């Protein structure tokens, strides 16, 4: 094994040196990413320290040296498979969404965010492990021209919140433990591991800051996914859709109780749920009592720990005002109006979205308007 580790020491020396060079080149080319590069360089320095120690352990013939490899790999994988490709290939559309998200982050109470790198390449994902202040967000390429699925970005912000405030998951974990302890069903709590509790919190956070648009988007995703909404799947990082939609609904501001687009989405979801049966596992693991408890705990955490996060409570305009675009409109306003137009007046949607993107481009794509 020591011979293998010796080989890896040489291998890592080359990779770490390449990462260092790439970061220097990127900083020269994209000075706006200075805060992110500083964080990555700091992680690189720590990783190089571990690499030096790995070398010493091999020289001392310590077989425990192998145990440093997963930790070294965890930086190398994130840097080479995610951060560097995003920075190296950053295009005009990525920069557009980056500027948009930087302004939205502040409104959502994420005051610590200094920089964001966006990679329009696939599903929504967020990486905040190397630095919570400079997350990497992956998103579908259509975000460059369409609001479709954009409420999901607020869910991604939720992941960044959890990285900044890890105590939130501990609070939710205690709520789950206490719930199942009362029922004397201790084994059931294992389902609600950190990842799933985190996903549920992100749904609640996204609905808190983005309002009905996120609720509608979650339902849309649930219907499109065409999976059993009550399926408690140990292999899925997410809770069943029925639980996710339920917590989104419970997190909506009460002013949306009679909002037509909310009612329409709820009807569609209930029809979808009506085609399947809840089983005992779902009733136990995702009971309304537990989900209510998790919603309450999450909302309390958001309000106490993120005082700058605004609870979305703007009434959605009535039909004639719906398409009106104003200077003061936030992205959340656009997404909520967009959801209402799309689901209530689909024939008007394409034209309205084009106008919205003209407005977004004029603010966040200054080069285009020249």
């Amino acid at each position, binding site marked *: 094994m020591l011979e293998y580790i010796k080989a890896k020491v040489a291998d890592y020396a080359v990779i770490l040196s390449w990462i260092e060079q790439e970061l220097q080149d990127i900083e020269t080319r994209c000075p706006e990413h200075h805060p992110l590069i500083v964080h990555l360089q700091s992680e690189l320095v720590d990783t190089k320290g571990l690499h030096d*120690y790995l070398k*010493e*352990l091999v*020289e*001392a*013939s*310590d077989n*425990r*040296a192998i*145990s*440093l490899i*997963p*930790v070294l*790999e*965890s930086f190398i*994988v*994130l840097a080479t*498979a995610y951060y560097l490709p995003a920075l190296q290939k950053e295009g005009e559309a990525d920069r557009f969404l980056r500027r948009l998200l930087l302004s939205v982050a502040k409104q959502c109470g994420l005051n610590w965010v200094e920089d964001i790198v966006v990679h329009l390449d696939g*599903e*929504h*994902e*967020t*990486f*905040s*492990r190397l630095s919570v202040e400079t997350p990497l967000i*992956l998103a579908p390429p259509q975000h460059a021209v369409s609001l479709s699925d954009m409420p*999901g970005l607020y*869910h*991604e912000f939720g*992941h960044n919140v*959890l*990285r900044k405030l*890890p105590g939130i*998951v*501990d609070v*939710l*974990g*205690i709520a789950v*433990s*206490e719930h199942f*302890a009362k029922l004397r069903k*201790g084994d059931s*709590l*294992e389902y609600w*591991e*950190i*990842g*799933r*509790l*985190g*996903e549920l919190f*992100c749904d609640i956070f996204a609905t808190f800051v983005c309002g009905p648009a996120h609720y509608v988007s979650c339902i849309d*995703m649930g219907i499109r*996914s065409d999976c059993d909404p009550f399926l408690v799947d140990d292999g899925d*990082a*997410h809770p069943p859709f029925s639980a996710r939609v339920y917590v989104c609904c419970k997190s909506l501001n009460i002013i949306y109780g009679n909002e037509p687009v909310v009612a329409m989405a709820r009807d569609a979801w209930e029809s979808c749920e009506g085609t399947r049966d809840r089983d005992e596992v779902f009733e136990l693991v995702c009971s309304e009592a537990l989900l209510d408890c998790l919603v309450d705990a999450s909302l309390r955490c958001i309000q106490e720990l993120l005082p700058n996060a605004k609870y979305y409570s703007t009434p959605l305009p009535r039909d004639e005002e719906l398409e009106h675009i104003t200077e003061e409109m936030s992205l959340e306003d656009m997404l909520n109006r967009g959801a209402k137009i799309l689901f209530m007046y689909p024939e008007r949607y394409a034209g309205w979205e084009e106008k919205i993107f003209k407005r977004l481009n004029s603010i966040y794509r200054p080069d285009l308007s020249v």
Partner: protein
Amino acid sequence: MSTLSSIDGKLAREKPRLLKFTLALIALGAQVGGYATKLGLQQKDFEKGRKTLFDVVVPLREALDQECPQIDFWPLVRRMKKGKKSMEDWRKDLDMVATQLQLKEPVTDEGLSILDEVHRVLEAEFSQDLRRLRNR
């Protein structure tokens, strides 16, 4: 849907604990093996290492019997329950190594081997999450 986001978040919680545990275990192993000076390790490093290991071993031992253990220990306890070693043996071994970690003298070979087992549990959970990140 963001699967990698939650894996990244979980790795962020797991990594500091795994790294600290690994470095502490290496230090105590070097002390027992008699090559600590080669690695520049001193008495204060062994004391710090013992405390680091103690701070993982004791809550892990408690988690085995708690109805509401701290959330970071849930996957570890589940992994231990699924393993070949009986929970009774785990309880006995963790109690024994926790006692050793409170003493001033080096841990025994037996103690080290139990700490290696704990390390394998921590590392298995971390590596599983890391593989999911790599297999995108």
